[in-house]
């Protein structure tokens, strides 16, 4: 023993069992922080690779820059790879066709596929001369092309013949557009574009070497060549994740991590402080005695802090191991269970950032948590040691009436010490507030990730000009295909309205019965049946700053339409004109057109590409078959991952609540163990003791619930209105389900929490319970 601080170590060893709870609290806090930061770190690794894959592994792109000037970048900066890239008929709106279907032409160099868009070339090789071309996978599906086939591309300047030398993969965009793509050698591409009198964009994609300050390099290049933002485009996604640009996603991710860490620190401080406080309360005389034999206030503070830090030191190795296992499990669930865009989540890697953050935050948490108990311990007067009245604080007089004595005493203990009551109530209420506030995110997920809605189509059929040429016969043909679950046709017309103050033009869309049934899920007010069954009745989808109300009328083509229902959401993106939905009868009565503009299809589970081919076989060649399945899968995996995050976090809040309550009650009992021992000595039996502790525990639980609801509900309402009502028009309601869950969790925990400590007190010899120090 070299210093008085060694007492902390000796004391911790002697009270190992009593300190387990505190150690567990610290461990939970550290595990949570390491997990949160590690997951962000893993997501960063995953996103870096994913973004480079999806957006291309390039950093800047030069546009409208002369060839020699652009290529001079090789001499001026550390360039790892660069290549020319250009497109022709990207929007598929020019008369460039392959077997009658519009085709997008791309001209580039081989390094585009080896360095910039790796893994895109799925079969074959890059064109070695001007007579070869790569096609996208969709060309195989639509035209049945094979490597070695000769394809003829028609352009206004004449026909071009190419031998297919390989295939590139489709993106969700090319699938949704049902696009054909041909990739040519850059020189050959230039020849075709020139012959067609098209201007060229001349894009030069550049990937810098690692470790370069890209921000500075871009600024230097701009300054040296006089390039503007128009000349130099940045790959915001890739640079953003590298911290070289401003990207909302990663900033948002760090924001979420920061909020979670603040919550974890708060919860951690709350739990650890509670444990330490109870330990101090229990050892008032001990600290008083130390003061008597000459310990200064600062020395006592240092001792308490030292004890806490020692527990942190002991908790760290286990915390690291546990949190890594948790992260690997979550990554494995994301990568193999959910898949989709999460398929690349790293499993089995170690996040040093996570561990560092955990240790640092753990240290800060413990220091913060130890501050109040240390102050409390230091404030113990030395006289408490000599007076022998360590826990004999004046708690007011208890009134014993007709009610059960143990319950009266338990309730008395709740209100005896105002400060304690405020702390306990506050900490229980904090859990309720956290739970209620965060539960709003469930509604957000349900509403924001629209592709998960029941009406989301797998396949859409339309003509490129959206003309109303899809007949009801086609709908019948499609319905007869095995594997097709739903077929819904929609008529559409952007039309002027009269006698309506709220809009001049509307998007009028027809629904069939199935679509009306789907709309019920989004009904805010009014009657869907009225719109479905009565001509002249329509539905309007809610928009922020809603203009329409039930009963509003408008005249379209001489026919009066009345708003019969309002929806919170619709499948259509509005471009400023309100979306008005009517029945097919109403639509044909106004415009007399019986054909559809769009047909949406949903496939049955287990039916895939073969069914899509069958659908394609009943369409004519000029019809667009937009395959949205991949985009839907991506959105589904995002939905699932967000659900895991939100529900996981809610479970975490509930878990912290349970643990905190059990811990607080246990500590409260420990702090009063001498009193309970004395009560046992004068004849209180185990049932009475349990009743007394349960009454106290439930007392804290009830007061926590009352304050938690009083503060949490207005906060829930405000958050709901900001995040949900504003965007989807859904009015706030008391969240009975969430309230019931969290109140049950609190009260059940409070009830259960009393049992363990009561048993411990009963198993302790009376002499030990009343004994000093």
């Amino acid at each position: 023993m070299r210093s008085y601080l060694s007492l902390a170590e000796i004391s911790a060893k002697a009270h190992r069992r009593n300190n387990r709870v505190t150690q567990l609290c610290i461990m939970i806090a550290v595990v949570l922080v390491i997990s949160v930061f590690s997951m962000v770190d893993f997501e960063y690794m995953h996103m870096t690779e994913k973004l480079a894959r999806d957006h291309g592994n390039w950093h800047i792109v030069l546009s409208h820059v002369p060839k020699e000037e652009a290529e001079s970048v090789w001499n001026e900066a550390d360039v790892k790879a660069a290549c020319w890239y250009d497109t022709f008929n990207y929007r598929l709106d020019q008369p460039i066709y392959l077997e009658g279907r519009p085709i997008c032409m791309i001209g580039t160099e081989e390094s585009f596929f080896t360095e910039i868009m790796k893994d895109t070339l799925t079969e074959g090789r890059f064109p070695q001369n001007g007579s070869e071309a790569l096609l996208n996978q969709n060309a195989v599906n639509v035209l049945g092309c094979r490597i070695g086939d000769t394809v003829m591309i028609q352009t206004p300047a004449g026909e071009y013949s190419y031998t297919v030398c390989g295939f590139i993969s489709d993106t969700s965009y090319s699938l949704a557009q049902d696009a054909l793509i041909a990739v040519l050698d850059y020189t050959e591409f230039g020849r075709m574009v020139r012959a067609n009198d098209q201007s060229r964009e001349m894009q030069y994609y550049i990937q810098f070497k690692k470790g370069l300050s890209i921000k500075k390099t871009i600024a230097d290049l701009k300054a040296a060549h006089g390039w503007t933002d128009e000349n130099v485009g940045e790959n915001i996604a890739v640079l953003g994740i590298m911290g070289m640009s401003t990207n909302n996603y990663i900033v948002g991710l760090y924001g979420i991590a920061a909020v979670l860490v603040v919550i974890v620190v708060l919860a951690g401080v709350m739990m650890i402080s509670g444990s330490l406080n109870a330990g101090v309360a229990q050892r008032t005389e001990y600290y008083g005695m130390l003061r008597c034999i000459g310990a200064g206030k600062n020395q006592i503070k240092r001792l308490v802090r030292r004890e806490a830090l020692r527990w942190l030191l002991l908790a760290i190795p286990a915390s690291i191991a546990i949190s890594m296992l948790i992260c690997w499990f979550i990554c494995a669930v994301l990568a193999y269970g959910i898949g989709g865009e999460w398929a690349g989540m790293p499993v089995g890697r170690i996040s040093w950032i996570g561990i560092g953050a955990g240790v640092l935050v753990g240290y800060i948490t413990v220091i913060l948590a130890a501050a109040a108990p240390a102050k409390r311990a230091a404030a113990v007067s030395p006289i408490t040691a000599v007076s022998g009245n360590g826990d004999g604080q004046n708690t007011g007089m208890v009134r014993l009436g007709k009610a059960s004595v143990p319950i009266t005493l338990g309730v008395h203990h709740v209100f005896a010490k105002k400060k304690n009551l405020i702390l306990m109530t506050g900490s229980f209420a904090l859990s309720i507030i956290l739970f209620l506030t965060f539960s709003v995110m469930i509604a957000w997920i349900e509403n924001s990730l629209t592709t998960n809605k029941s009406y989301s189509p797998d396949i859409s059929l339309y003509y490129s000009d959206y003309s109303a040429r899809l007949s009801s016969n086609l709908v019948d043909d499609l319905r007869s295909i095995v594997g097709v679950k739903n077929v819904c046709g929609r008529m559409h017309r952007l039309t002027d309205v009269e006698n309506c103050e709220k809009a001049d033009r509307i998007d009028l869309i027809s629904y069939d019965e199935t679509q009306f049934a789907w709309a019920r899920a989004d009904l805010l007010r009014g009657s869907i049946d009225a719109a479905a069954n009565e001509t002249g009745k329509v539905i309007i989808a809610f928009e922020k700053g809603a203009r329409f109300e039930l009963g509003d009328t408008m005249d379209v083509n001489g026919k009066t339409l009345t708003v019969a229902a309002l929806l919170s959401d619709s499948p259509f993106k509005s471009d400023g004109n309100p979306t008005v939905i009517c029945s097919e009868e109403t639509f044909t009565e106004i415009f007399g057109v019986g054909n559809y503009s769009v047909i949406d299809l949903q496939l049955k589970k287990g039916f895939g590409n073969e069914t899509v081919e069958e659908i394609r076989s009943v369409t004519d060649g000029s019809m667009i078959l937009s395959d949205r399945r991949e985009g839907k899968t991506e959105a589904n995996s995002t939905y699932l991952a967000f659900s895991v995050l939100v529900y996981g976090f809610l479970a975490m809040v509930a878990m912290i609540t349970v643990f905190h309550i059990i811990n607080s009650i246990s500590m409260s009992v420990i702090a009063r163990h001498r009193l309970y021992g004395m009560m046992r000595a004068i004849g209180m039996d185990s049932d009475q003791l349990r009743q007394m502790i349960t009454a106290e525990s439930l007392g804290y639980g009830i007061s926590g619930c009352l304050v938690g609801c009083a503060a949490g509900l207005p906060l829930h309402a405000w958050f709901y209105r900001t995040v949900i009502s504003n965007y989807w028009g859904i009015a706030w309601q008391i969240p009975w389900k969430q309230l019931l869950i969290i109140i049950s969790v609190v009260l059940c925990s409070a009830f259960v929490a009393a049992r363990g400590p009561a048993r411990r007190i009963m198993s302790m010899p009376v002499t030990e319970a009343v004994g000093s120090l």
Partner: protein
Amino acid sequence: MQLLEVNQLSKTYGSGDTAVHALKSASFTLQKGEFAAIVGESGSGKSTLLNLIGGLGTPTSGSVIIDGNDIFSLNDKELTVFRRRNIGFIFQSFHLIPELNVEQNIMFPVLLDSRRPDEKYLDELLHVLGLEERRSHLPSQLSGGQQQRVAIGRALFPRPALILADEPTGNLDSENSREVIRLLKETSQKYSQTILMITHNRAIAQSAERVLRVSDGVLTDLGRCT
């Protein structure tokens, strides 16, 4: 040489009708090396007097001067350091640190003062207290008499000028009581320390060099017994 001077020391708890005058204008002095006992009924104000002299509480009026220092003119920090270096406490219920062994308990106040414990003095003290064989034992492994001897050791080890003992034999049988008092007297003489001790035991009080009686808060100096 005068070590302790208590002047018009009063302590009143509460105010108005409920005021309790625990100590009323107590005054006395003690010489260096003197061994004095305080006697009196329960609730007479003995412990209040002892606590005030030890700087554990603040008086309503009056002063306590130890070795020329008016302890109530010191701030909290100075008082703590003064107490650590100049006053040793011995309690009726020992108040040892349960997780420290005998020698660690004894040297703890010196460690608090960031000083290196004098190993030779520790051995000597353990020998005088008859605890040599028990130096590595925890308090729970000792008898009541042994625990009180450890407490005496702890009070003596920083070589304080004044030792305040609140019924040090209250929890001991007569044989252990006699032994503890013998040790206290012996060590105080050996190390020239002044002892002020509360006791209910008439025989022990008679063994002191001087006896002070407190009754209803009023202190009477009964003078030397021997």
